[in-house]
């Protein structure tokens, strides 16, 4: 297998694993946070405004690790620097 094929294969496999592991952790954490938030709202419905605002903000912060892995995998697939360099060497 030449360099280009190897780079493509490794990039695609790594992109899949990145999204799988990253979204797994983020989903687990977000699920726990949402469950705790709903329990808190059920206990204190008067504080629902404050609790849901804090819940949204913390969900966004937890979600950013998932977003990072998505961005990394998109870079691996669509804007892979090693692929571009080897492709330029092969063609040029």
């Amino acid at each position: 297998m030449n360099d280009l094929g190897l780079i493509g294969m490794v990039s695609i496999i790594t992109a899949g694993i990145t999204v799988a592991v990253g979204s797994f952790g983020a989903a687990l954490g977000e699920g726990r946070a949402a469950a705790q938030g709903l329990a808190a709202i059920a206990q204190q419905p008067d504080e629902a405004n404050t609790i849901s605002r804090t819940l949204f903000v913390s969900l966004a912060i937890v979600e950013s690790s998932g977003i990072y892995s998505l961005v990394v995998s998109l870079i691996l697939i669509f804007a892979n620097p090693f692929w571009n360099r080897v492709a330029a060497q092969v063609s040029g």
Partner: protein
Amino acid sequence: MPNTDAVVVWRWGAYEVNATIAYTWLVMGLLTGVSCLVTRRLSASTRLTRWQNLLEVIVLAIRAQIREVSQQEPGPYLPFVGTLFLFIATSSILGVVPGFVPPTASLSTTVALALCVLVAVPLFGVARQGVLRYLRTYLHPTPLMLPINVMGEISRTVALAVRLYGNMMSGTMIVAILIGIAPFFFPIVMQLFGLLTGLIQAYIFAVLAMVYIAAATRAHPGKAHADRDGRTP
């Protein structure tokens, strides 16, 4: 990958206007134009136009949110935080218009917005409590924490930028991929979902900026203090 930075729509000599800047100007023009048209005839009586009613609702809601988050008077923070929210929200709402790519789906726009927050936080902090007292917050628990505090300042800026970029770009990208696979129905559903995500991200960006500013303007971080109403944040 819908990269609007590489699309040049207008060129004059050495100056280039790419699609991101053009869409940004479109959103800016829409916001300022509508606001100018509405605020030309303001009335303080009980009879007011429906547009003035709309703007009052928006401004009052933003003020209430700022007051709740920061436990301070929203006056000085309203222009900055409100502009961030309105700009991001408008560009994600306009994302359902065919042909419009939200400028926040480009990393350059989100980095610029995050850099605005990075600059605004020390400005508000210094304006509120003076240079020395603001700089002392970097040494807060112990002076050993100084590098970690500075790193935290930088990493949260990167996090702000990448979070908004990732959400917006993945939204437009999923729609673009789905149009190729299953047109007519699924792209619409994902557009609706993207509308929700966009508004939530706008809200979160503004709230996080407000939280950072509130942390910088608070006199002693970590130590509860009573404000004018006697509440402790």
